């Protein structure tokens, strides 16, 4: 743990120094290098997952049978959960629209859960 802490601080200082270098080079080169240097890291950080991987990993390790997890498995479960939540939200929304209501209620979620056989694991788990 101590080691990881020290590398983190090292990384941060690295980042800062890099940024400083970038700023200097930008001020000298001005237009040509400006956009590609800035854009790439930003898009790579943002686009893949919306849930924090660290939190999902934490929830995964609550499972007593789960000892070690690979980077890919954490990513896949995070992404799967996002897709799953989108699906559940969309179906719940359809339900309230069918009832001509403008607010998605808890009973819409319950209705979706009993509608799909794959979702039976959620029955009674949401109290």
């Amino acid at each position, binding site marked *: 743990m101590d080691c990881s802490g020290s590398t983190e601080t090292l990384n941060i200082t690295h980042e800062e120094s890099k940024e400083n270098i970038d700023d200097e080079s930008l001020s000298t080169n001005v237009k040509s290098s400006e956009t590609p240097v800035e854009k790439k890291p930003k898009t790579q950080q943002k686009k893949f997952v919306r849930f924090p991987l660290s939190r999902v990993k934490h929830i995964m390790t609550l499972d007593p049978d789960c000892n070690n997890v690979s980077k890919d*498995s954490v990513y896949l479960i995070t992404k*799967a*959960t996002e897709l*799953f939540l989108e699906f559940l*939200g969309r179906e719940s929304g359809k339900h309230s629209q069918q009832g001509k209501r403008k607010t998605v209620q808890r009973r819409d979620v319950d209705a979706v859960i009993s509608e799909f056989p*794959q979702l039976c694991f959620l029955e009674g788990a949401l109290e």
Partner: protein
Amino acid sequence: MAEKLEDFNLPMSVVQRIIKEAITENLNIAKEARIALARAAAVFVLYITSQSSLIAQKANRKTLTGDDVFEALRNLEFDDLIEPLQKSLQEYKESYKKKDKNVSTSKAAEEDQGEEIEEIEDDNEDE
């Protein structure tokens, strides 16, 4: 388990954003429904994890792999998620192979993001 209830939760702000994007614009979500959906997502993480762990155990492996997750999803009849996940994993893998040089900096950035989200969540709870 009861002691760690808070760790079960995924950040509410992210849950809210994902649901909002999934449903049609003029729909609102009741607070109760939102809490139920967030809980459903967290239960989903554990559900897939425990199934994946079983598969890894049967194969005498201690580390959860991406293939274990795919097989778990197939067993639990979430076949629809598999294709988009395979594409997404491919992109993810390519991105972190490219980033090999900058691995340390990206890790630091990832953790920063996680912390930010947690802070937001805390703010919401105060309200």
